[in-house]
């Protein structure tokens, strides 16, 4: 692989060196899926505050109180479920925690088998009563979108996400090879120097978060690895029972065993949860799953939450539902399975406290900006070499427009989603879906706008529109709810206050970008662009 070695090919063309080929690989893997990666990165980034977004999007649910006792809540909710879903063979109770102020329950409608018969409700932990909040997907929409998109079958979306993540992984590794002076580059910043400034920004953002970017991309693939790479499991296991040994190391299965046919009352759930609390701590019980309800063969699984440990490997206690006896303790998985559990947990960041969560958010935002600056760099670099800057060739225009609609358009669409949450009437049928339709309508409009306006104007105007949509959102919140910024600040409601303030920070960011774009004077077409130092191509 000596770059300067003469070639024995018939053509006298010099074989490009390693850094040159890696540069090409980096550019093409990055460009081809860059827009999707940007969307995955940005929606994934905000998903670190998924629970907080969900809270903001259901303002009628009371602000967080101290985390209630899991044992009491589980018992109370089991009472509610007894009247809400008496015929269901199973209940699933998601308990509240520091970031989540509601109990999410689901049960099976016995008349409709399979996933379609799964019914859900949101309950008040204090009263056990069903809560009536506006219909919304909340922060779950961004979370689910970032790995399976929307308006397409779930496996397609997940395969597309995996495909793009694989491109990302290759782009990161090839990008590192391109930069032999990776640390020197990190301390180099040539402000206001056009292409060099974009290159330096791209380098700084990439190197700053390099361990994170590598981790998040690899771990993203690991979260869905059995979908992408089923071959090992298929070869090793032939029967469903064998395969269950594998999935049991990844997820908590619904309580096993067949019903006995003999009717029996359920032993107090609170006692079982208390046993778990003694092991894991008061607030580390994640959920309670009950199977074979009403039968002597009932099983109760008390499942450990994600807090306080950097792993999502299943840990649970299984109790006999009739006698309340502890039957099984699952507290560890094998080393390889645990590696997967840790990698998965690093991706989700659910173990993080507030400080670490913000760090996650910021470095992930840097990742988003890394993808964004990379996309812009592609056009900046080629604009200098355009034969006729007034009429660029088609692929240049395509990339430029897609960049505008993605980088500036997606944040505007996300703002539209939040506006829809406050403005759509509660009585609207399919309200939760309409919030999402609004998101895509807004995004589509930004693409149309970016295609019709001159590119420079489109950048500036869309960024200003984003800034305005975000800046006005806290005001809209104040007008449509009783939890506007003054009220939430006074009440010490940091979910709402923090959300509104963060939205203003983003509005300011969009405004700064809009202003800088407006003030930027593209230089007159230079005489033949020279190759830059420290950069091949």
């Amino acid at each position, binding site marked *: 692989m000596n770059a300067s070695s003469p070639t024995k090919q018939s053509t006298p063309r010099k*074989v490009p060196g390693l850094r040159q080929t890696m540069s090409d690989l980096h550019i093409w893997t990055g460009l081809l899926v860059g827009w999707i990666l940007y969307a995955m990165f940005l929606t994934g980034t905000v998903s670190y505050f998924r629970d907080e977004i969900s809270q903001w999007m259901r303002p009628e649910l009371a602000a967080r109180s101290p985390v209630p006792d899991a044992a009491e809540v589980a018992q109370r909710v089991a009472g509610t479920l007894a009247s809400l879903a008496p015929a269901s063979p199973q209940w699933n109770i998601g308990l509240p925690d520091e970031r989540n102020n509601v109990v999410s329950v689901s049960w099976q409608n016995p008349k409709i088998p399979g996933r379609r018969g799964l019914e859900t409700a949101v309950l008040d932990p204090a009263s056990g009563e069903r809560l009536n909040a506006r219909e919304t997907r909340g922060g779950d929409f961004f979370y689910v979108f970032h790995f399976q998109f929307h308006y397409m079958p779930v496996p397609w979306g997940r395969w597309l996400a995996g495909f793009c993540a694989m491109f990302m992984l*290759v782009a990161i590794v090839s990008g590192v090879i391109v930069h032999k002076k990776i640390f020197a580059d990190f301390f180099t910043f040539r402000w206001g120097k056009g292409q060099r400034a974009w290159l330096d920004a791209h380098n700084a953002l990439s190197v700053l978060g390099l361990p994170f970017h590598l981790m998040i991309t690899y771990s993203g*693939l690991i979260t869905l690895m059995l979908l*992408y*790479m089923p071959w*090992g499991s298929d070869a090793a*296991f032939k029967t469903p029972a064998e395969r269950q040994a*594998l999935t049991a190391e990844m997820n908590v299965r619904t309580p096993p065993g067949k019903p006995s046919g003999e009717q029996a009352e359920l032993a107090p759930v609170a006692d079982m949860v208390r046993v778990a609390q003694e092991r894991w701590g008061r607030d580390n019980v994640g959920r309670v799953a009950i199977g074979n309800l009403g039968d002597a063969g009932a099983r109760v699984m008390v499942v450990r939450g994600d807090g306080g440990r950097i792993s999502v490997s299943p840990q649970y206690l299984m109790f006999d539902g009739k006698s309340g006896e502890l039957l099984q303790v699952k507290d560890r998985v094998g080393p390889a399975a645990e590696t*997967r559990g840790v990698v998965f947990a690093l991706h989700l960041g659910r173990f993080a406290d507030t400080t670490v969560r913000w760090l996650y958010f910021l470095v992930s935002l840097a990742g988003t900006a890394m993808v964004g600056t990379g996309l812009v760099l592609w056009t900046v670099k080629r604009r200098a070499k355009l034969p006729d800057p007034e009429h660029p060739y088609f692929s240049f225009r395509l990339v430029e427009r897609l960049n505008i609609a993605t980088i500036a358009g997606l944040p505007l669409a996300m703002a539209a989603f939040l506006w829809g949450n406050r403005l759509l009437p509660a009585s609207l049928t399919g309200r939760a879906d309409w919030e999402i339709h609004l998101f895509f309508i807004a995004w589509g409009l930004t693409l149309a706008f970016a295609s019709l306006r001159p590119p420079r104007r489109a950048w500036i105007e869309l960024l200003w529109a984003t800034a305005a949509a975000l800046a006005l959102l806290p005001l809209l919140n104040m007008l449509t709810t009783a939890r506007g910024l003054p009220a939430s600040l006074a009440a010490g409601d940091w979910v709402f206050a923090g959300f509104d303030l963060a939205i203003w920070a983003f509005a300011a960011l969009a405004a700064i970008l809009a202003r800088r774009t407006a003030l930027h004077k593209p230089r007159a077409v230079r005489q033949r662009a020279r190759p830059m130092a420290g950069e091949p191509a």
Partner: protein
Amino acid sequence: MSVVLAKARQALAAGPLLSRIAAAVFGGYALAALTSVAAVALPMSRTEAVFTGLLLSFVIYTLAVIWVFAVRSATRAWAGLVVVAVPLLLAAWTVWKGHGAA
């Protein structure tokens, strides 16, 4: 005639690149898939072996793609993949065969 020749030459020039892209996308995936099966032959519990293979496969895929574009020619790219695939295939074969007997 010369136009046809020029076109043909152009197509041939794109050939190695297309070949590399195929080697990267499909060859790389095949190698990764083979890794995930071969790992099942590792001397550990089946479940653990499957997880090990899964965790490794994406690393192998990435390295394979880098390899394919780093080497001097498309032929070398494929040759490198085959050289790694052979031992993996042997291991994977014992897994497939072993299971048939079990």
